[in-house]
């Protein structure tokens, strides 16, 4: 049976079916954990269908595994799903991280397991939906939906009494720009009469969306700002540290980076190619500043989660720097680094989580000299650190190297200066990560934690971490395998848009709605 045309629906809605099932089952024993694990594993296996049957020779800019059926006739909304080289590995990554998220939550979530795993699976639905939707309405629906389970996870399962504030902050930070994003989308619809991404990209490439430059600019900003907050791009990261320090490990693993970055690559670059190129100098500057700012603040943190939060800001800034260079290397590297961020930060947050489970503190001053007591833990920490700081042979290096190469090749104004600044981030990242290792695992045993009898990494935790380590190594030595698909997207996005043909922008096909005199007068 050929399931190519339904596989994306299956991937997206298996977690939903799982969430409904878990909500109906009784919350007894470990039933919730096993149920969630089964659902996430099935989802992951389904996502593997994509790389197995991906057509690498497909024309750039086309979509595969497409499903396009009627949903609502007026306004013209279709149920349109599809993937290309940009989204394919992100979907697999999302599927891959979910079972690990269940494994690390196995014992940490003691009561209200049903609520936790239901929300966790709903979050999964929303993220997968974002990556597969090609209809702007459908995409926006998943985009908004992704806020709710995350905010509730933070509000309910947050670590300290500050959790409600953190949840509301996260929600408002993401919701308000999204509301403006909706205005942008509706404006596009009013101009073009379609919500289909491929059609909009086609219209944008031929300069047929609107002749009104100012309105196009506003619309492109409404898109970019909504996405940049979600990434987050410096200086829009106000929600980040609160949300990261409160959220449970399984939620933190998927909180940062990929949703916003994917959306910028897909929708900002796809629908507003020219505006995105015009704003690139600003964005690479913000990227470079974000790298250094994140790393410097991480350097002075005493709290491990705060350190990880600012570290994450630095890492997504690398991606921002890379993709806005509009070079093939920069875009490939940016997409690759987005995957790395998911894997490296995922492993790092899991490790922090299991450390916290044992000692009940994230304060580095309470730690010291754990290397002798926890040999497995220190091994895993060091490997993860090396991946995060970009040691060759591990995945982090490939992404960072490509990004910096691309940034040097770029033609964006002032790119050299910003690249040089961004490159110092490599050193700073190494400093705070290695210093963290030294303070937590080496030196004298700290009196606060020395006498606590704790087990080393348990079997379940090994099970959650080794897949990540294996992927780090595999992505480090066999990068061409992943880059093959990513490169199709990177090459396509790096193409410069055609110059404006004078006739095109003034053509009568420019879909201006006819405004009667009465309506005109109200404006």
């Amino acid at each position: 049976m050929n399931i190519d045309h339904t596989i994306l629906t299956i991937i997206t809605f298996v977690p939903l079916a799982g969430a409904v099932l878990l909500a109906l089952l009784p919350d007894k024993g470990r039933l919730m954990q096993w149920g969630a694990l089964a659902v996430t594993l099935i989802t992951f296996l389904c996502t593997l269908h994509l790389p197995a049957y991906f057509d690498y020779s497909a024309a750039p800019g086309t979509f595969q595994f497409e499903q396009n059926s009627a949903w609502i006739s007026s306004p013209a909304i279709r149920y349109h799903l599809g993937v290309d080289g940009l989204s394919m590995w992100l979907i697999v990554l999302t599927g891959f991280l979910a079972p690990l998220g269940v494994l690390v939550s196995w014992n940490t979530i003691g009561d209200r397991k049903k609520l936790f795993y239901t929300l966790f699976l709903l979050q999964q639905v929303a993220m997968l939906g974002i990556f597969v939707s090609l209809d702007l309405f459908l995409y926006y629906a998943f985009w908004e939906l992704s806020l709710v389970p995350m905010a509730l996870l933070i509000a309910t399962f947050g670590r300290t009494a500050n959790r409600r504030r953190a949840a509301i902050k996260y929600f408002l930070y993401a919701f308000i720009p999204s509301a403006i994003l909706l205005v942008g989308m509706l404006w596009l619809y009013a101009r073009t009469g379609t919500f289909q991404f491929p059609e909009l990209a086609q219209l944008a490439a031929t300069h047929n969306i609107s002749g009104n430059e100012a309105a196009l600019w506003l619309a492109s900003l409404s898109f970019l700002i909504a996405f940049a907050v979600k990434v987050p791009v410096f200086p829009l990261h106000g929600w980040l540290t609160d949300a990261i320090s409160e959220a449970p490990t399984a939620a933190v693993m998927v909180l940062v980076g990929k949703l916003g970055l994917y959306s910028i690559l897909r929708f900002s670059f796809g629908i507003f190619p020219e505006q995105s190129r015009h704003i690139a100098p600003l964005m690479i500057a913000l990227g470079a500043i974000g790298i250094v700012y994140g790393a410097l603040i991480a350097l002075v943190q005493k709290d491990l989660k705060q350190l990880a939060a600012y570290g994450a800001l630095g890492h997504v800034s690398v991606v921002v720097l890379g993709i806005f260079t509009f070079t093939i290397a920069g875009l490939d590297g940016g997409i690759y680094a987005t995957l790395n961020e998911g894997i490296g930060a995922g492993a790092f947050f899991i490790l922090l989580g299991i450390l916290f489970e044992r000692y009940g503190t994230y304060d580095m001053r309470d730690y010291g000299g754990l290397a002798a007591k926890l040999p497995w833990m220190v091994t895993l920490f060091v490997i993860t650190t090396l991946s995060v700081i970009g040691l060759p042979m591990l995945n982090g290096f490939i992404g960072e190297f490509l990004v910096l190469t691309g940034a040097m090749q770029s033609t964006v104004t002032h790119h050299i200066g910003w690249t040089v600044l961004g490159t110092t981030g490599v050193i700073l990242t190494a400093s705070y990560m290695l210093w963290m290792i030294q303070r937590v695992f080496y030196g004298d045993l700290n009196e606060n934690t020395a006498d606590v009898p704790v087990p080393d990494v348990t079997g379940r935790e090994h099970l959650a971490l080794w897949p990540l380590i294996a992927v780090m190594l595999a992505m480090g030595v066999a990068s061409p395998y992943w880059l093959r698909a990513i490169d199709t997207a990177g090459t396509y996005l790096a193409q410069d848009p055609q110059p404006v043909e004078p006739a095109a922008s003034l053509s009568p096909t420019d879909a201006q709605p006819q405004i009667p005199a009465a309506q005109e007068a109200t404006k």
Partner: protein
Amino acid sequence: MSSNVLALLPELILTLVGVFVMLTEPCLKPGSSRKPLGWLAIAGAVGSLIASWYQIQFGTIHAFSGTIQVDAFSVLFHFVIASVVLVTLLGSLDFFEGNASHAGEYFALTLFGAVGMMLMTCSVELLMVFVGLEISSISTYIMCGFRKGQATGTESSIKYFLLGSFATAFFLYGVALAFGATGSTNIYAIAHGLETTATPALAFTALALIIIGLGFKVSAAPFHVWTPDVYQGAPAPVVGLMSTAPKTAAFAVLLRITFTSFPLYQHRWAILMWVLAALSMTVGNLGALMQRDVKRMLAYSSIAHAGYLLVAFTAFPFDGIAAACFYTATYAAMNVGAFAVVTQVAGYDERARTIDDFTGLGQKRPYLAALLSFFLLSLIGIPFTGGFFGKFYVFSAAIHGGNMWLAVIGLLNSGVACFYYLRLLAAVYTRPGSESTRLNQLRRISVPAAIGIALAAVATGALGILPGGAVSFAEYASHSTLIEQGRQECAASPDSCNLQLNYDVK
């Protein structure tokens, strides 16, 4: 069946059942259960739903010398009103818990109120609208003060009565001035008279007065001041009813009067509506931010939702009427659902009033809490709920009409709105402290109430996930009013007729 009977079939059913309930109530023993009367009223509501459904096959019906016009538009609003009444009655069957001495009157008044509201939506004669308005208002005035022992209830009732009568007077004054300016109170005749009127200023004043009167009924800012106090004092199921059904009816009248009677002045009243919409959204949402009482908060939220609905009035006629119809239906479904849950949690004597009182509901009543969350998420406008699609549809219409900034104001407002809905939601899912005992005496939810809440939830969900059918119904309603408008214009001045009838009846 004569067309007069056919046209008013839903209203007739409700009136007869209401009178029967009223007459039976004194024959029952004092203290005996009033539930059979409630079931009778429910049967009446179902009957009127079926009757409305039956009417749709006849297309547009004119009755009572052209004062009543039953078309897809009025059927849609009949439907919404009858459904709201049904959910309210199901939710209030067990509401009286031993305070049942006046329950029979309550059921009868609900039905009479519904008759008035339905009459408003299908009248094309402003005096008939006024009669409907009075029937519905007087019933709700009484129901607000239903818990006679409580001071807040009496306050609520008197406040609503005084300000409501004042607003009705505005409406009536507007009707009188419209008659002076155009020589008629029939909405088509007014439209025709406007073309030749010697006193356009008078005509516009008439419209402004009518908008003020109806603006009060839909609690649009700045005519909203009564709303929080009245909602706080009235019993929860009554608030569920009065925050949806009479508003629905008033919006139907407003749509008919603005788009059908005064299309010539659209460039003027669209500005008024723009201002009312922006004010209502902002005042409603900012006001709700400061509330601790759940019913007061939902009162301000209903002001904000009236604002979202008014946004539809700034769009093109076809888009605007369709979007307003759709939004009315979703708003009614989610709001009546939210109040049905609040009714169950609070009980007759309102044990749980403030947001803090709802703390821990998630643990004590997981399903009730899940439903409340669903309604709140829909009120916020989270995707795959009716509230999201409704907002989407309204703002899409407004942007299509060129009102970009109103859409920006509205959507920013919906960001502010998240804050207070989420505060309630967060309380519901927070672990209760040891001192919280308010929810301890929560009784089991009865089967009819569960059915009512489930109906509202299914409607809210269906309008969000599969809005296709409802959207085509709303568009059909919009078309049918515009076509009838064109037909009437042609009848009045046949030489300037350019009517195109090209819409398929689905």
